[in-house]
Structures are given as structure tokens and as C-alpha cells.
């Protein structure tokens, strides 16, 4: 055998070895996160219930329903439309694991972009997992990608044409769930997930729908409530109410001509008041230094301290950072304020939620205090969450 052939075989063996290790690592992200429903959850289903085109696909994300004894309005809450925005998902997880409903219904989808949790964004150095400390032990969750996994939807077009408006965006946006609403049943994988969510909102007669997000601290639309025009009065009332809790929010109108976003398409095609809330996530920032799970949890970054000093940061930022507890607390308090605003406008169809942690409780106790310990999961057979 010639030397270069032997070398080729050796390199192939090494490639196979590294490939196996990489494959195992990438494959580990396909293991679903464990959400341990609390006693408030009355029903659990999957998104394919609303669109059979998702049956068997990666889009079969869990949907949790919390129904009160008294009839009332319906609130739908989505987290994980962008899986790299952890506060949205965790706010939903806290609701599913801790809250209960006295009147009306909550429909919670903690990980709307199910496929996006199976990978991370290239060249961002994002960790695959992060851990939330509990009283004893911790719970680990995946930190996903902004868009769906290209393994599920590939190739990306050069230009993404939104259905049905024909709006043109960069091709990569074809895998961004928050550019694909209202979706279509026979479209791309992401469009089918969007369609199923749109079907859920319509078939469940949702009165108020909230999409939870995060953004880079230099992004101008941050610490904000974006409202479809029909929901502006509720959102304005919520902003004033939150201000009384010393939580500053700006209010933004959903742009009529920017199609594909949840607040635009949900509000246009359904009777629901549609909102989107943003908090600040240093992990998404372009100015950040080293990226790590700790940065996600604390939001403390020396580069952002410098940026804040020269006025480049759009949220209050100091050496205490923007901890995940604060961001989840803001989302939960924001939800509470939106529901209060809705209830004031619709006293005939109120929504009554109990055991929803306040902002102060999240900051003081940490969100781990409102997540269930792994022993509480009757389906748990392993000790992997320690």
C-alpha cells in the first residue's frame, strides 16, 4: 500500500472518530427538555392536534392547558418562538409547573419552535445547555437556535417570500417562526408549525395571545410591549400598571406592513388581542465578551458595562447585569398586567390566574423556586436532573 493511501485511511478513521463524537454531541440536543406539569394543568396535548400536517414531525411540541372551574376568557402564551431567548420559554415553564387558573383558560406552548431546540446557531459559541438552580439540585434545559434546525428544512432560498403577502426577506428568515405566520398547511416545515399555531388560536377562541421574546440590549425595541392596533388600549393600561411596580416598559404599535410576525398576523386573522413582549438578553448581544451559561443566567458582561457608559445600551445596565430571574419576572409581571387590562375591558369574560409568581418573587427567590423538583415528575426514571 502506498504511503498516501495509508495516510488517507488513517485520516478517514480519525474523521470517523471525531464524526462519531460530534454526532453524539449534536444528537444529544434531540433529547426533549423535561417540563413537570403542576396541579394546575388540566390537559396536555401536542401542536399536531391543531394541524395533522405536523403529525410525526419535529413540530409536535407539547401544549399545556390550564382550565379553571368557572368559564371565562382564554389566554394563549407562547415561549420559545426563538429558542435562543430563554426567558420566554422559562416564563412558560414556570406557569405550567406552578400556576393555576380559577376562571377561564390558559393555553401554554413553552417551546413553540420545537425544531429550533435541536441545534444552536453557528458561530455564536452558544452553550447547548444551561442549569437553573433549585432549592436542592438543578434543572437543565437546552439553549437552542433562533431558527429551526436546517436538518429539518433545507436548503434556504436566497430570498424568502412570505406567504401570503409576498414580502421579501433574507433567505435565512425562512426558518424563523416569527416571520412565517400565518403559515400554511402544505408549506415549509416552519410554515406548517406557524399554521398549526394560527389554527390553535382560531379553534380555541383565544381572547388574548402573548408571544414572549428577548433581544440584544442594543436593540431599540426592548423592554417593550408590541401590540396589534386592537390591543393598544390594553397595552397602554398595562404599561401604566407596570410603571406603578417600578417596571419601565415602552409601547410599540405592530407595524402594519411588516408581515409574518406573531403580533401582526394573529391580530389580523383571529379575534385575539395580540401582543409581543421583549426583555434584554446579553447572550444575543453583538458586543458581548465570552459566551457561557453563566452569562445567560447573570447577564453580567464587562463589554456591555463599557457600552452602557457610552450610551449604547437601550436598557438600564450596571455591574449587576440583567439576570434571568429579572427577565422572567418582567415577563410574568407583564402577563399579569396585560390580563388585568383585558379583564377591565371584558369583565363578562375574565381570566383569573393564581400562583403566578410576581416580579419581586422571581427576583428574590429565583425562578428555581417555582420549578418542580425532578422527584415530582411521575414519569421520571433517571436521576439525570440533579
Amino acid at each position: 500500500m502506498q504511503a498516501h493511501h495509508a495516510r488517507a485511511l488513517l485520516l478517514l478513521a480519525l474523521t470517523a472518530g471525531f464524526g462519531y463524537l460530534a454526532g453524539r454531541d449534536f444528537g444529544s440536543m434531540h433529547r426533549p427538555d423535561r417540563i413537570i406539569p403542576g396541579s394546575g394543568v388540566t390537559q396536555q396535548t401536542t401542536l399536531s392536534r391543531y394541524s395533522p400536517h405536523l403529525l410525526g414531525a419535529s413540530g409536535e411540541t407539547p401544549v399545556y392547558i390550564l382550565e379553571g372551574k368557572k368559564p371565562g376568557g382564554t389566554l394563549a402564551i407562547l415561549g420559545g418562538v426563538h429558542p435562543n431567548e430563554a426567558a420566554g420559554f422559562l416564563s412558560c415553564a414556570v406557569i405550567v409547573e406552578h400556576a393555576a387558573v380559577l376562571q377561564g383558560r390558559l393555553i401554554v406552548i413553552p417551546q413553540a419552535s420545537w425544531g429550533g431546540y435541536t441545534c444552536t446557531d453557528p458561530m455564536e459559541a452558544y452553550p447547548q445547555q444551561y442549569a437553573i438552580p433549585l432549592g436542592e439540585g438543578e434543572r437543565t434545559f437546552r439553549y437552542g437556535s433562533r431558527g429551526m434546525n436546517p436538518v429539518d428544512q433545507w436548503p434556504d432560498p436566497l430570498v424568502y417570500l412570505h406567504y401570503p403577502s409576498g414580502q421579501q426577506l433574507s433567505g435565512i428568515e425562512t426558518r424563523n417562526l416569527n416571520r412565517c405566520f400565518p403559515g400554511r398547511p402544505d408549506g415549509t416545515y416552519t410554515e406548517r408549525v406557524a399554521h398549526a399555531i394560527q389554527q390553535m388560536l382560531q379553534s380555541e377562541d383565544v381572547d388574548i395571545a402573548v408571544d414572549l421574546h428577548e433581544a440584544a440590549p442594543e436593540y431599540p425595541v426592548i423592554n417593550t410591549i408590541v401590540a396589534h392596533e386592537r390591543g393598544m388600549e390594553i397595552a397602554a393600561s398595562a404599561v401604566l400598571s407596570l410603571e406603578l411596580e417600578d417596571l419601565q416598559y415602552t409601547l410599540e404599535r405592530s407595524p402594519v406592513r411588516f408581515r409574518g410576525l406573531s403580533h401582526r398576523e394573529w391580530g389580523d386573522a383571529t379575534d385575539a388581542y395580540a401582543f409581543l413582549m421583549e426583555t434584554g438578553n446579553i447572550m444575543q448581544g453583538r458586543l458581548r465578551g465570552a459566551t457561557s451559561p453563566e452569562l445567560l443566567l447573570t447577564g453580567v458582561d464587562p463589554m456591555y458595562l463599557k457600552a452602557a457608559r457610552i450610551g449604547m445600551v437601550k436598557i438600564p445596565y450596571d455591574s449587576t447585569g440583567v439576570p434571568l430571574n429579572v427577565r422572567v419576572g418582567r415577563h410574568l409581571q407583564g402577563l399579569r398586567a396585560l390580563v388585568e387590562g383585558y379583564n377591565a375591558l371584558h369583565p363578562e369574560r375574565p381570566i383569573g390566574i393564581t400562583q403566578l409568581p410576581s416580579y419581586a418573587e422571581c427576583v428574590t427567590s429565583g425562578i428555581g423556586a417555582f420549578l418542580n423538583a425532578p422527584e415530582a415528575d411521575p414519569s421520571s426514571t433517571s436521576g439525570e436532573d440533579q
Partner: protein
Amino acid sequence: MTTYPKIVALVIVLAVLSRACLLAQVKPRFEKPILLTSAGQSADVTIASTLLKKAQIESTVKSLAQPADLAGIRTLVIVAGYSSKGLGAAGISRDEEMARVKALLAAAAKAGVRVLTMHLGGAARRGNQSDDFNRVAAEAATYLLVVKGGNEDQFFGDIARSKKIPIDVVDKISSAVVPLQAVIP
């Protein structure tokens, strides 16, 4: 006390009081009907509408008010603050919005309509993009009502001083109800 020291004491008290009166802001009174609009298309105009309702003050809200909308109006309430999303929602460009605001304020001045300028967005509605609109709306005001967070650098305070415009600075948006009720009885 003899008469002469009493007269001196009275003159001193009167002098101090009159100086205090001169220095104190003379707050204008605004009449109805009221037209509420935006300068920069931020959604703060909706928050202002909610505030006016809380203050039990009736108003007509037109985010894109034109000079013709001033017919029959006695007070123009203008909420300053720029939002690119707001401009997108309204379907107009930044230049078109600035032209509209300037035309509206010129028409208000010509028609003798008093202008109440509010800035509610705090630091988020300040900066290069917003301050053009903030300045135009503030300089045309008969009275300024601003939230403290948007005036940390005395942007509005300096305009108020140089143009001799009465100004109230409140800690929170919700605190604006009381000064509003004071100037719009």
C-alpha cells in the same frame, strides 16, 4: 414695635413675596375641545390618551393629525417621541412625519390654538432620532409636561428656560394626571 420698623418689615415681606410670584411659573389654562396627536409616531400617544381618560379629560385622538383637523379645536396636545415601528405602522417616512408636525404646529400658532407638549417615553424616547421631534414639539409649546427619565440632561428644562415655557417634570407617567387636571380644568 414702633410704626417705622413695622413699615420696613412689611415692605421687606412684600418684596420677597412679589419676587417669589415673579419667579413662580404662571401655568396656562387650556380649553376644550382637545386634539391629541403624536410627533414622531411613538405609541406614547396611546398612553397619553389613557392618561387623559384617567384625568377625565375628553379628547379626540389623531396620531396623524393634519392642519385641517384643528378646525374648532382650542388645545393641541402633542406627544413627542420617535418610533421607527410607529412610522412603519403609520405608513409614512421620517421626513413626512417631520413635515406634518411642523405644518400642524404652524397652523396651531396661526389659529391661536394653544399647544401642550408631553414627553412620556423617558430615556427610550430620547437620542438622535427622537430629539429632532422633541425639540420641534417642545419649542412650540405653551406648557411642557415631561417624565423625569427623559429630562436627566435637562434637554426639556433648557428649552423651557430659554423659551420661558412653564414646565412640570413628573417622576412617573401615572403622576402626570394631577398636573394635567390642573392645566385643563
